[in-house]
């Protein structure tokens, strides 16, 4: 019986390790390629560890295009949109979770239903709308909508608020606090875990966004990093080590953020996902 369970355990470990290698190999391949010299780049069988680490690949690729400008644009969009997302989504979530008003449940169903709408359907009118406002080729289309709340984030925060005992705000109300003070002074501090989650996911979706910048931006000076990288790849005479170096740099902030916020992502989001 004991040997049987040991065989079973070994089998599971073997599978886990195999899958880990499969999932990590492309990332490793990216890192190692970014450090290779031209002589080792196109070799078969491939060399896993370059004999010399060519760190200058990063600098060369970075300065070959206005990547510093792209970085500034990406940072602007990501920071401002995420800030807007956190502020607006938490306000709206509180409104849905803590008040009863006519049409509330209907509106909430509508909010959930909007998550089903494919972006292709609204893409053209949005383009026309932003064009009418003179926002095309500016970063506004990527920032402003975030200030009006995201359905998924609102849902996430609402679920969390519903789990907070209501007695808390009754006590505060007796003390004379108004709705906004209660939200700001009592709820916001309690909402730290889901707010971190919203921050992380909003950051990831803005930083990683490609289609938004692709549709709404024209001039290279307005490009975000993802758009810059896509353009960089299509250029003549660009080598793989440069592309992988930039790719690696673009992946770095999400990866770092993920490791910092890992605890929240792994535990909280999965729970709320099931409830949905």
């Amino acid at each position: 019986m004991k040997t049987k369970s040991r065989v079973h355990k070994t089998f599971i470990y073997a599978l886990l390790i195999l899958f880990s290698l499969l999932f990590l190999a492309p990332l490793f391949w990216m890192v190692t390629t970014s450090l290779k010299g031209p002589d080792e780049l196109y070799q078969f069988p491939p060399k896993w560890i370059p004999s010399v680490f060519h760190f200058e690949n990063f600098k060369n690729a970075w300065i070959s295009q206005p990547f510093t400008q792209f970085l500034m644009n990406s940072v602007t969009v990501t920071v401002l949109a995420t800030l807007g997302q956190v502020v607006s989504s938490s306000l709206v979530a509180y409104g849905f979770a803590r008040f009863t008003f006519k049409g509330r449940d209907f509106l909430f169903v509508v909010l959930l239903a909007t998550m089903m709408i494919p972006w292709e359907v609204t893409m053209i009118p949005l383009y026309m709308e932003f064009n009418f406002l003179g926002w095309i080729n500016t970063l506004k289309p990527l920032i402003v909508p975030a200030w009006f709340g995201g359905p998924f984030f609102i849902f996430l925060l609402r679920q969390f608020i519903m789990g907070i005992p209501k007695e808390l705000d009754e006590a505060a109300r007796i003390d004379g606090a108004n709705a906004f003070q209660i939200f700001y002074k009592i709820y916001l501090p309690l909402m730290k875990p889901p707010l971190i989650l919203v921050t992380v996911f909003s950051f990831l979706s803005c930083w990683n966004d490609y289609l938004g910048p692709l549709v709404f931006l024209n001039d290279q000076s307005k490009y975000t990093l993802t758009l810059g990288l896509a353009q960089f790849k299509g250029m003549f005479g660009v080598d793989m080590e440069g592309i992988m170096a930039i790719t690696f740099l673009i992946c770095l902030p999400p990866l770092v953020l993920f490791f910092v916020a890992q605890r929240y992502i792994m535990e909280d989001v999965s729970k709320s996902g099931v409830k949905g």
Partner: protein
Amino acid sequence: MKAIHASSKPYMEFNQKKKIKWDKLVPFLFISPWVFGFLAFTLGPLLFSLVISFFDWPVVGEAKFVGIANYKTMFTDDPLFWKSLWVTVKFAAFFVPLNIITALVLALLLNQNVKGHSFFRTFFYLPSVISGVALAMIWAWVFNGEYGILNYFLSLAGIQGPDWLNDMSWALVAMVIASLWGQGQMMLIFLAGLKGISKEMYEAASIDGANKVTQFFKITMPLLTPTILFNLITTIISAFQQLTLALLLTGGGPLNSTYFYAMYVYENAFKYFKMGYSSANAWFMFLIVLGLSLLVFKSSSAWVYYEGEVKKKK
């Protein structure tokens, strides 16, 4: 004293009235950002998109009402429409089940109480935090026919790998593989679903003499069906919106073998500037996705098991 009291009473009443009105307004103030955003960035565009789908709407020049002509052209006079629809259906037919199976298998493995399972969990989730552009860049290099690592691994097994992205019969398979790499979110949701199954259930089953395999099919799977339903619908929706990978890995080629429906919609709008036609395309896709989701949802009463219902029967 009396005078003050008399004068303050109407004031109080006024204040009370104002307060009640204010109280009614407060919830709307809280949700107003979303309401405004919904009207301006979702409902408005949605309706407008429906309207222009009945127009010939070029970027420059007059828009002309054409009735259902756009929809008619799409079905009867546009081979690319059928081609892209077929490519997307093929992609979904492979991707949807494979994505769910991969995520489920990984979640089951992680749920086996192994040491270091948080490390493995991190490894499997890691690719999902990466941008679609970065993902495409990495996989373009992995799939490289001459120098890529995928063909290197295949060569170790004595298999001569194809030139994935330039081979008509393999490019779509390559897309499926690259997309599977980002299954992390789904795995986490399955993992949470598995954690939600109470241990007592398994204990009771093993006292009754059920072995692991029976337990899996009689306990784990049925109790996981609501999670599978959720994941199924999300994957179907995402399969029909796949665009980034197609744009960056193959550009729809070779010979349109990876020309996804989303790419068809996108190019009609922003490459050929047929805004009305593209809107008609988009609405048709919306209806397909809605229909499929509804179908899956309707079918769920036959295969999704809800604990609450059984309790009622008892």
